[in-house]
């Protein structure tokens, strides 16, 4: 049992303990913090499984954005009704434990028996690797996402847009005491923002450009941008606006516009559907996707159709 196995064992046990804590904890706020920590441990698990792309995605999207979204949603419930019981009663479902044990056992047998089957001779993964050589990309995952199976990525951007449109369509008029302005008097927060927000833009562009050859890409970069946006919304530098202007709408739909524009527009030049002409197309699409993902997640976080700068 050399150190590698011990590390894996510790991570595995950590995952299980944290999952149990997240689910069984009575206070919702505590569960959210534990869920963020669970995201951290998941990111470490992805690194142990030699998948840095997924570690990056889990850290940026899984732990960061999802944690922030849940914290904001819980906060909104608190603002509406401050004497919200912090801890929530647990349902008395007798069937829960046996069903859970059955599910765990089923998945365990599947996972273990799936382990010792050797992958198929010419599986998609192997083909992806040697198709990658004659593209200009170095990172196979970005290759699959943007070149080989790009319809999935396009429709996934559509799912993100639907989530935003749905959140707008479903929102009921805000509760009166929700309009309370966030207390922004903390002195140091301004300084931290002045450093963190430009840095998040810098790191996002770094991840985006690095995405072609090493782990990174539009999704992780978009999530980092969203994190910067979240910080601005929280400290009321960006406040919810009423009607989304053309600029907001353009930024939110930029990813899809670029992808559909190039992917379908290419057919006018005689190419097949969704064939990307060159690396420039990949960069244009990835930048547009980064902008849309960042803004969409920030808008979903703020729970408002638009974001406007702080009135002077």
């Amino acid at each position, binding site marked *: 049992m050399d150190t590698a196995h011990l590390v894996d064992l510790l991570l595995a046990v950590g995952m299980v303990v944290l999952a149990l804590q997240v689910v069984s904890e009575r206070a919702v706020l505590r569960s959210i913090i534990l869920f963020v920590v669970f995201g951290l441990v998941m990111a470490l698990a992805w690194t142990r499984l030699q998948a840095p792309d997924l570690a990056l995605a889990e850290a940026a999207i899984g732990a960061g954005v999802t944690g922030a979204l849940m914290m904001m949603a819980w906060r909104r419930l608190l603002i509406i009704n401050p004497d919200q019981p912090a801890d929530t009663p647990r349902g008395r479902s007798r069937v829960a434990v046996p069903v859970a044990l059955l599910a765990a056992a*089923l*998945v365990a*047998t*599947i996972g273990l*028996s*799936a382990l010792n*089957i050797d*992958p*198929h*001779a*010419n*599986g*998609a*993964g*192997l*083909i*992806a690797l040697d*198709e990658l050589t004659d593209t200009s990309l170095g990172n196979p995952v970005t290759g*699959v996402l943007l*070149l*080989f*199976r*790009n*319809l*999935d990525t396009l*429709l*996934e951007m*559509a*799912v993100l*847009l*639907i*989530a935003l*449109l*749905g*959140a*707008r*369509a*479903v929102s*009921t008029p805000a509760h009166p005491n929700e309009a309370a302005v966030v207390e922004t008097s903390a002195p140091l927060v301004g300084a931290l923002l002045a450093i963190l927000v430009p840095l998040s833009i810098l790191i996002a562009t770094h991840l985006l450009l690095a995405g072609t050859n090493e782990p990174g890409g539009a999704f992780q970069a978009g999530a980092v941008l969203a994190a910067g946006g979240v910080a601005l919304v929280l400290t009321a530098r960006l406040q919810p606006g009423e009607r989304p202007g*053309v600029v907001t*709408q*353009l930024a*939110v*739909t930029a990813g*899809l*516009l670029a992808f*559909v524009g190039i992917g*379908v527009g290419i*057919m006018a030049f005689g190419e*097949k*559907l*969704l*064939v*990307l002409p060159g690396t420039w197309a990949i960069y244009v699409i990835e930048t547009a996707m980064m902008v849309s993902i960042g803004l969409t997640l920030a808008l979903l976080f703020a729970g408002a159709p638009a974001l406007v700068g702080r009135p002077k």
Partner: protein
Amino acid sequence: MIAELLAGLVFIPLGATLLVLLLPRQARGYLCFTAVLALPLCLMPLTQAVWADGEITLALAEFTPPLGIVWRLDGLALIMLWLTAIVAVPVSLHALTSFPPGEQTGRGFWPLWLMLLAGINALFLSADLFNLYVTLEMITLAGVAMLGIGGNALALKAAMRYLLLGLLASLLYLLAVGLIYGQTGALDIYLVGERLETDRLAATALVLMITGLLVKSAIFPMHVWLPAAHGNAPGPVSAILSGLVVKVSLYMLIRIWFWMAGDWELPAAATALGLLGAGAILYGSLAALIQPRLKMVIAYSTVAQLGYVMLLFPLASINAFHAASYQLLAHGLAKAAMFLAAANILWSIGTDRLHALTDLNRKLPVDLFALALAAVSIMGLPPSGGFLAKWLLLEAAWQQGAWGWLILISIGSLLSAAYLFRVIALTCFHPERRHVPTRWQSPPSSASIAALVLALLAIAAGFTSAPILGLIDDSLPPGGIWP
């Protein structure tokens, strides 16, 4: 030329959504309506092509399976695309008045509706397991979001229950896709069908996948979320959900059962699916008998009618295949017509409680006529499309001497006749229950015409069976267990 049309099916509604978000307010309604009208126009030449030389395939980004994604258009997919296009036009006409593009609810409805259409068309074209997952998520999210428009408390809670069950079902489906990919290294349904050998692991993956899809298509006993969702949905949304969204996962189930696990001998599982269908028919019909509200009756009738499609699995024959696809088509048309009519009734007298719907035949003649016509098709009375579907099903059961299914189908038809006659009787033949409705607003004529058009199409489906059944004949699954 074919590739442009296939692309048009998915990217015209998607592009229209993007334009709707960017354009000023005035041009929105008409842009959306023209985008919906463009779909049948794209489908006509495609039907010609499929009619001429069978299945059309288009490798996206020029990468063929196992790596790339392939769009396949065969008879069954074409029929489902036609169902979507035919239902979409009248529903959009109805939505022009119930969700006016200028208003707040309209601004929410139209982008989601166009995105839903893009997702549905992308799903019917795709034959890739993971791509089906992504499009299914698109459809579920758009459907739940539309259900929540207007913010009535019951609809919001039903939307949340639908969303949670939908996400759980998608997770099971995703796990199954991961397992199958781990084993076969491929995601295309046909390729997976060839490479998948029938060991215990593949069987577990299939069970997970089928459970997920059964939950999404609200087959008994996983139908809990459907009545509250379709019964409380605003205006045309219940027509969209019952007419189209619920059929999407059933179509996927048929694709996976016959195209992917085609040459597996699973008689036990097939009868199990048939029994679930039987449960759906009986439970749905009985529950529909006791519902106080018109839209809840129609919602439970959806649960029942979907049960008939499940009978395709135990009676796996050419006739059964004809019957199931015809049932999907006819039920889609008739159910959308009924929900549009119900929406008009609810809109005009403010409630859809059956006891309040007295002597509507004088006030809402067109809607009542549409409701009656659609009921004829759901009941399976000649000459409607529903009748043809049930007739083919009876024929299939008769050929195989499956008396159990035969009796079940006839009982089901009787029950559906019962709960639908109850509705017709209450609305037309009870003059003595003089309950003057509190408010009265005649619905816009275009909304009533939309319901009537769909109902007439449901009846007309009974006559145009030859071309449709011909299309299905040349797109039978490769498995070839066809007696």
